[in-house]
């Protein structure tokens, strides 16, 4: 049986675990393993040259995540599509739950304890939002998308979780969620001028709204936007991070030889600043190599989207790709001192369960899209 025949089989019957396993893009799985391995090396160094306390758990989590990812990859994309809004509802429910009972960390309510794992619902929410929006636009024709009334429900679907996340308060994740939603809208064919109007309106309203805020509210926003205004706190972190990045030079100081990291000048080196740790020890070469691996992950998602034969899969793939891209970009831009937002990890490399598991969930969905790229959805209900 040729590959083509197997695909036909799949398209018609939509079953067959072995056939699906055959269709899984193992090169992508290998790429993820490579990224996780980079994370292992970095965390091994962050642990002072030992698998404890970070690297070992990182490997364990990745193994668990891998099984989860492959399981999800085998789930029929049509089933996933049917559950999109249910997932969205669950995500919003968790956000509400965290607002009511969540743990306070760094001045914001961000996560809830689920047994041994801390779950950040905002991470999960981003994926659920992508699924829900993809489902909404799945059947919409070009003309339909042009209808403003048709756009109102998905806009509300974006603003609800974004509002909840902003209220935590977590401006960074809120804005990222907004941008992911925007990317799906964009890919679904929402007209150019609507984006243009929205951006223009935001540009006009934001300063006016800012003017009307109380001083303490403004101060809060300033701290959100520019942590370096607090030189002893977040500002110190950025300065030390830049020193670590710069002092690594081209080839780096060598594995376990990073002084900034090992002498604790680098803050939170196992989470938000793990990339800096890598760059200090492996230099520009190591940093650029890691960046290239991460870019490959992002562009794989793009490739999946372009090859998919149904709109739902395309939109899911593009949304998930943008989701991972936002992590990578914001994190690395932050550690290089390019943008002032903080608190964004580098999934698969950073230490931390929540980001790793949600990322693996996303990759599972992405692979499912790839495996089921030729699946036929039922007849359109006009």
């Amino acid at each position, binding site marked *: 049986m040729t590959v083509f025949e197997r695909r036909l089989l799949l398209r018609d019957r939509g079953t067959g675990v072995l056939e699906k396993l055959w269709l899984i893009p193992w090169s992508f799985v290998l790429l993820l393993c490579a990224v996780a391995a980079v994370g292992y090396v970095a965390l091994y160094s962050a642990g002072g040259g030992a698998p404890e306390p970070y690297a070992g758990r990182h490997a364990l989590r990745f193994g668990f995540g891998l099984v989860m990812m492959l399981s999800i990859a085998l789930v029929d994309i049509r089933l996933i599509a049917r559950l999109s809004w249910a997932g969205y509802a669950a995500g919003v429910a968790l956000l509400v739950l965290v607002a009511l009972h969540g743990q306070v960390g760094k001045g914001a309510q961000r996560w809830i304890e689920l047994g041994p794992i801390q779950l950040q619902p905002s991470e999960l929410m981003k994926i659920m939002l992508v699924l829900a929006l993809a489902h909404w636009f799945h059947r919409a*024709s070009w003309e339909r998308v042009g209808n403003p009334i048709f756009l109102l429900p998905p806009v509300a679907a974006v603003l609800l979780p974004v509002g909840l996340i902003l209220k935590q308060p977590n401006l960074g994740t809120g804005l990222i969620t907004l941008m992911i939603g925007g990317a799906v809208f*964009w890919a679904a*064919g929402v007209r150019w001028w609507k984006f243009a109007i929205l951006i223009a309106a935001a540009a006009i309203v934001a300063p006016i709204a800012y003017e009307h805020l109380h001083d303490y509210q403004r101060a809060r926003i300033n701290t959100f936007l520019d942590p370096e205004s607090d030189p002893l706190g977040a500002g110190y972190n950025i300065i030390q991070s830049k020193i670590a*990045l*710069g002092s690594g030079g081209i080839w780096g100081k060598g594995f376990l030889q990073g002084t900034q990291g090992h002498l604790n000048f680098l803050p939170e080196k196992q989470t938000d600043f793990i990339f800096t740790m890598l760059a200090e020890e492996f230099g520009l070469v190591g940093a650029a190599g890691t960046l290239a691996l991460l*870019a490959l992950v992002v562009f794989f998602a793009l490739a999946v989207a372009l090859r998919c034969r149904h709109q739902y899969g395309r939109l899911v793939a593009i949304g998930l790709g943008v989701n991972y891209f936002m992590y990578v970009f914001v994190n690395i*831009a932050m550690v*290089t001192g390019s943008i002032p937002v903080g608190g964004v990890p580098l999934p698969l490399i950073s230490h931390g369960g929540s980001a790793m598991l949600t990322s693996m969930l996303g990759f599972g969905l992405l692979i499912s899209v790839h495996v089921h790229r030729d699946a036929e959805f039922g007849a359109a209900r006009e």
Partner: protein
Amino acid sequence: MSKRDEERRRGVFTRRALLLGAGQLGLFGFLGYRLQKLALEEGDRYATLAEENRVSTRLIAPPRGRILDRAGRVVAANDLNWRVLLTAEQAEDVGATLETFGRLVPLTEAERARIERDIRRRRRFVPVVVREFLSWEEMARIEVNAPDLPGISVDVGTTRHYPYAEHLAHVVGYVAPPADTEDDDDPLLLLPGIRLGRSGIERHHDRVLRGRAGTVQMEVNAVGRVIRELDRREGVRGQDLQVSVDAALQKAVRGRIGEGTSVVVLDARNGEVLAMASQPSFDPNLFSSGISAAQWREWTRSRATPLINKTTNGLYAPGSTFKMVVGLAALEARVVTPAERIVCPGHYDLGDSRFHCWQRRGHGGMDLRAALKHSCDVYFYEAARRMGIDRIAAMAKRLGLGVDLELELPGTRPGFVPTREWRTRQGKAWNLGDTVVHGIGQGFYQLTPLSLATMTARLATGRAVQPHLTRAIGGQPVRGVRAEDWPGLGLPERDLRLVREAMWAVVNEEGGTARVARLPAALGAMAGKTGTTQVRRVSREQRERGFRVETLPREWRPHALFVAFAPYENPQYALSVVVEHGTSGSGAAAPLAREVMVEVMNRLRPDAPPPPDRQAAAAIPDPAAGHGQERRR
């Protein structure tokens, strides 16, 4: 949805997805650009910053050089200073540890408060000093109970110790922390706890004694904890110094003098200071362990001025001890001949003024030898009148009076000898009457006991010796130890011999003013000269009412002076004694001078000066050697 619609939708999606991908690629490019900018363009700067973060340079305090006396006795030592330190991090409970410690070595409430404050202020791994200067017994008690004292450690530093305490305080000086305003770029000064020489030899030779700081480079982490040592450059320990003073002699001399008395004993041949005593004195050890404000106030406000070395800073009119200067000047100026006699009727008239001789009855005809022996005032009134003040001043300076003698004690005063020109500069005229008064050592003179001893040494040897204290630095003898190092005075031997013989007569001949000062025959003969200087003018009425100084309050009585050298035939030692308000030179100063000279001659025989001794210094181990203190810059 029609196939056309789907095609169109897919076309839009593909275009927009590719645009999105292009945007993402651009942003990845931006990140790459940022990374290369940091690593390549600014890499060197950040590498330097990373090094500054990582490396902390600390100084190692070199042990201070010791000071030894002429016999090799240590007079300034580095004592080990046993300290107890507490590292908060290692103590489970700081309060409990201090409680236990307090049962072994009692701690006052104030001490506990200070310790707890120090702990709060520092990082938890930085040890704080609990107690310094522990006794051996206390140390033992702590060591035995070490298991019950988590966080407590014992450490040894050095502290300056002066075994002869107040006996040599004025000579050796003391050490104290540098002032903030110190004009000195020696990195050593940055060490907390560093002590620098603040007075005496400690100050004069501070550079020699202090040595050079070593450095040690440490790798530290973000909170300042030392991870490892990267590089160590040992410092240079301070050089040992030998001074000419004999500590035992000094102690013996000081045992014989009371408040307000100063004694200087020089080796007449080379100017070495053998003893230099000024009463009262102070304990320099109190400075090492941190002097209390109350003690400092007491010392600085006391009328007895214990901190002042009177031998170098006390200023006195020389009185009759100055008559040798006038005699030599007169001989050189040829205004008198050795044989010429001047009649002393007990007073000397100049115009309307009458100047009295101390001997109201008068001495009769006096030649120079007799005038010195009897200390006849009239002879010197006349001699002074004949030659004028400037010739006297010139001779005084040649003999070491009123000039800077360059002694190694900071603040030593040169003293003062008046000249006509000085008086003119003051806008006043120099009268002949002034010259007459200055002929007997009264008037504007301001001379130190040190300079009087120097004068005596020069008279005794005919060489322009200068008093000095340093014999050897780091085992190497310094210049000035040999008599030949010093030039001659350029005075005729005949004149000098006459003056010396007269001084011999003062002590040894019937009718001399200091017969009480004769030495035991076995020690040979001493030659000397008395001096009594008025503190207040004696009025005519007092004189006529049969005035007796004994009835005056103590602080109005005259000072008593005596200068002497011995042995007469082969002068080796020169001394000066000043007893403030001692009433009379022959009564108070001369007998004391005899006692001191006997002490000197008994102690310092054999009569050759011991060579500056490298072995003597090296033979005594320095307990503090190798105990450099390390402190963080």
